[in-house]
């Protein structure tokens, strides 16, 4: 099954309370977010993209610093091509399955780090994601 096809529904997540100023939100059951998949969820006053990259979960804000487009809403996780002096300018494929592409203008982000590939000075915030009772949770 195409993991992107299994996670197309964007919806609000349910607050699970939390302690202090931190707030926790349910994302979805773990079996609804297989490796390579991602979902868009409302967490309080913001949208998040929540990703499963090779079994690790990540959450990033769904906003692109370029023109404020929905950065996490590209359908697929892809990789990227790079070339440099260290590769004798021969292109190489990197970050396979770890890169999201903003659907507005194509700016690419490395999901595990939140870094923009074209402009490494730009980083999206990474929110803490964890699993509780087979439910994927995110903490703001």
């Amino acid at each position, binding site marked *: 099954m195409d993991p992107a096809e299994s996670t197309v529904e964007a919806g609000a997540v349910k607050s699970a309370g939390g302690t202090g100023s931190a707030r926790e939100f349910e994302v979805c059951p773990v079996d609804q977010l297989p490796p390579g998949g991602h979902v868009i969820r409302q967490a309080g006053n*913001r949208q998040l993209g929540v990703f499963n990259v090779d079994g690790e979960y990540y959450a990033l804000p769904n*906003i692109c*610093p370029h023109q404020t487009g*929905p950065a996490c*809403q590209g359908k697929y996780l892809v990789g990227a091509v790079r070339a440099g002096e260290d590769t004798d300018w021969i292109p190489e494929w990197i970050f396979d399955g770890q890169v999201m592409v903003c*659907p*507005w203008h194509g700016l690419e982000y490395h999901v595990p780090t939140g870094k923009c590939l074209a402009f490494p*000075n*730009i980083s999206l*915030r990474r929110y803490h994601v964890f699993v509780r009772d087979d439910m994927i949770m995110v903490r703001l």
Partner: protein
Amino acid sequence: MNVDREAAEQILLSQVLGLAVAGPLAVVDTEAAIFVVLAEDQQDWLVRFEKDGQFPAAEWAHHMVDVYNDRLRRGDTGDRWQARPPGMHLDG
């Protein structure tokens, strides 16, 4: 207006419009980096722009905030900016 109700309405509006954040953004300038934050809680950041070398961090941050806050004021869903076909969107 009740603050909780106002916040709930902002969230609902942002969901209806498909906007990423319910409320305006702001810029916070620190020694090492510039942050785009939620205006209502400036500890709550979304994007970090490193001040390093020639990178125009302040220009990027202020541009992002100006664009987003203007979209929020105008209720701009951004549909006209989509450069890729709907099928390439997660909810397409």
